[in-house]
């Protein structure tokens, strides 16, 4: 469990909307070690989900991706890749809404068997057995029977387990999780988080987990990156970030933590709205909503700078943050 698995440098996602360029992801850089779990937190529209999808090349065709992506599948160190290269090879993804993420006209066993058929050269019979094995691995009871079912015949929790089994069917070293628990009932959320945690250690699989819910991220992640308006504003080990936030947005996010199980990622508690990607404010993009904003905050773009070992922030006045007053 050493060496970087994924290196993302200066990731930019641009859309062309009626001849106007919009950049909802604007210079995101991050690294991930083998087996590590990284959480990306942010409100809706912060670009966290788009960042995730550009790592695995699932953006809509009208999006342009810039920056450098490197991934180490079987190599010592990460090498550049084209996003489509990792489809079925090394990186998988699970989505927020398991109902829409499963092909409604495919029996779930057949869906899970697609990966083994395509990449392991398995025959029909063998792949079906592998699918049942995977269903057992993700804790689906009576998998032989359920493999013959259609997605709409399963409960939300079981659907998400099918989704996870599908993602695992290609034996990924990195599992991308796009708010996989948000659409589920609270008790099911816990089960799915537990399952992901267990699979991660058992399969030595790295995870990037995107959510607006800090409580969820705290449960599963080693490290945290906070995103705001298309940029990462703070990174660090989960415990340290929680204990001592170095960016006012992180602090605001924590004080407005929604109750565990909230189903939207709209956060209340922070004044104002996240800025429109068509019209980002100059300098620090959080400044218009920031309680500590100074004149120099809006003067120039601020990049992540190290404040302590393993910790970075984009805030130029972290000393002003009062902390949570524990």
């Amino acid at each position: 469990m050493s060496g970087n698995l994924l290196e993302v440098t200066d990731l930019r996602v641009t859309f062309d909307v009626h001849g106007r360029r919009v950049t909802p992801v604007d210079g995101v850089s991050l690294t991930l070690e083998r087996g590590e779990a990284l959480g990306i937190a942010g409100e809706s529209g912060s670009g966290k989900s788009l960042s995730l999808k550009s790592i695995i090349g699932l953006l809509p065709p009208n999006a342009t991706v810039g920056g450098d992506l490197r991934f180490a599948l079987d190599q010592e160190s990460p090498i550049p890749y084209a996003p489509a290269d990792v489809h079925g090879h090394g990186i998988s993804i699970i989505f927020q809404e398991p109902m829409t993420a499963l092909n409604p006209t495919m029996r779930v066993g057949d869906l899970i068997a697609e990966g083994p058929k395509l990449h392991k050269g398995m025959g029909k019979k063998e792949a079906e057995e592998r699918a049942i094995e995977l269903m057992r691995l993700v804790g689906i009871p009576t998998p032989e029977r359920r493999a013959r079912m259609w997605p709409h015949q399963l409960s939300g929790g079981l659907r998400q387990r099918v989704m996870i089994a599908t993602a695992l069917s290609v034996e990924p070293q990195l599992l991308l999780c796009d708010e996989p628990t948000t659409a589920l009932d609270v008790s099911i959320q816990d089960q799915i988080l537990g399952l992901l945690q267990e699979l991660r250690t058992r399969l030595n699989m790295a995870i990037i987990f995107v959510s607006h819910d800090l409580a969820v991220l705290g449960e599963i992640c080693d490290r945290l990156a906070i995103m705001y308006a298309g940029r990462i504003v703070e990174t660090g080990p989960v415990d340290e970030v929680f204990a001592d936030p170095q960016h006012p947005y992180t602090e605001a996010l924590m004080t407005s933590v929604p109750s565990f199980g909230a189903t939207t990622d709209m956060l209340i508690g922070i004044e104002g709205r996240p800025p429109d990607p068509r019209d980002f404010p100059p300098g620090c993009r959080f400044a218009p909503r920031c309680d500590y904003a100074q004149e120099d905050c809006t003067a120039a773009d601020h990049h992540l700078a190290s404040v302590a070992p393993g910790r970075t922030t984009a805030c130029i006045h972290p000393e002003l943050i009062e902390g949570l007053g524990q």
Partner: protein
Amino acid sequence: MGRFGFVGKRLLQVIPMLFGIVLVVFMVLQVTPGDPARQIAGLRASEADLDEVRESLGLNDSVLEQYGRYVGNVLQGDLGFSYKSRKPVASIIGDRIGVTVWLMGVGLLLVVLISVPLGVISALRKDRPIDHIIRGLGLLGMSMPAFWTGVILLLLVANTTGWFPSGGFGETFWEKAHHIFLPALTLAIASSPFIIRGLRAEMISVLESDYISTGRSIGVAGSRLVRRFVLRNAAGPGITLVAIEAGFLLFGAVVIETTFALPGLGQGLVIAARGRDLPSVQGYTLLFALAVVTIYLLSDIITAILDPRVEVGK
């Protein structure tokens, strides 16, 4: 039982619909100007003769009684007698139905052969040059009157190559196929643009759905993605589209049979309408309505079979 329950319910809905259609056709034609008795008895008939004809046709009874009698007769397969030829309408229809079934069958086959590939390509290459070309051709096709397209095909294909007859129908299977090809192609050119447009929209919405992302993320790509993830999901709505198009297709058949002098139901309807032959018009209309309703029903059933979710549906 789920799916069969669905089909049963759908069948039950069709019956009142058919009665409604018969009623509307009957009512509309009641207000038709012109005296049927005069038409049958001729211009020189005396008032007494006319009364006799009216009495024999039951025209002196109330509208409701006439409707009841008509429905009763229809249920027994009796569609009345043509004012013109004096032959039973049912037997006239029987003579003509084969041609129209051929035209619709081959036409529909060509529609599918043209629309499915073009619609799929257009969606997969959205906003690329090929998509623009297909959509442009579609706009052109939608603007062309079917009968004119037929005339142009006669001019460009039949006359210059001599490969196809310019009208009429044949006796043997191959003669029939030979005669029906150009009319069917005309029908396909007239209807395909709508199907292509609808199929493209449907495909695009399928392509943008999450489960396509799931498929791509595990490495399903190219034709396998289209076959296993896209087509079956787009097929149901596609079939519904074709069914909705059926009414238009029938109208196209009316026009095209006239253009190519095909002795089918459409041509029969036009001749009957020109001659103000009321029982024949009624018979043809009824049959067309029945055909459309049947096509809707079939499409619903096929959609239900294709989509596993319809099981418990209403």
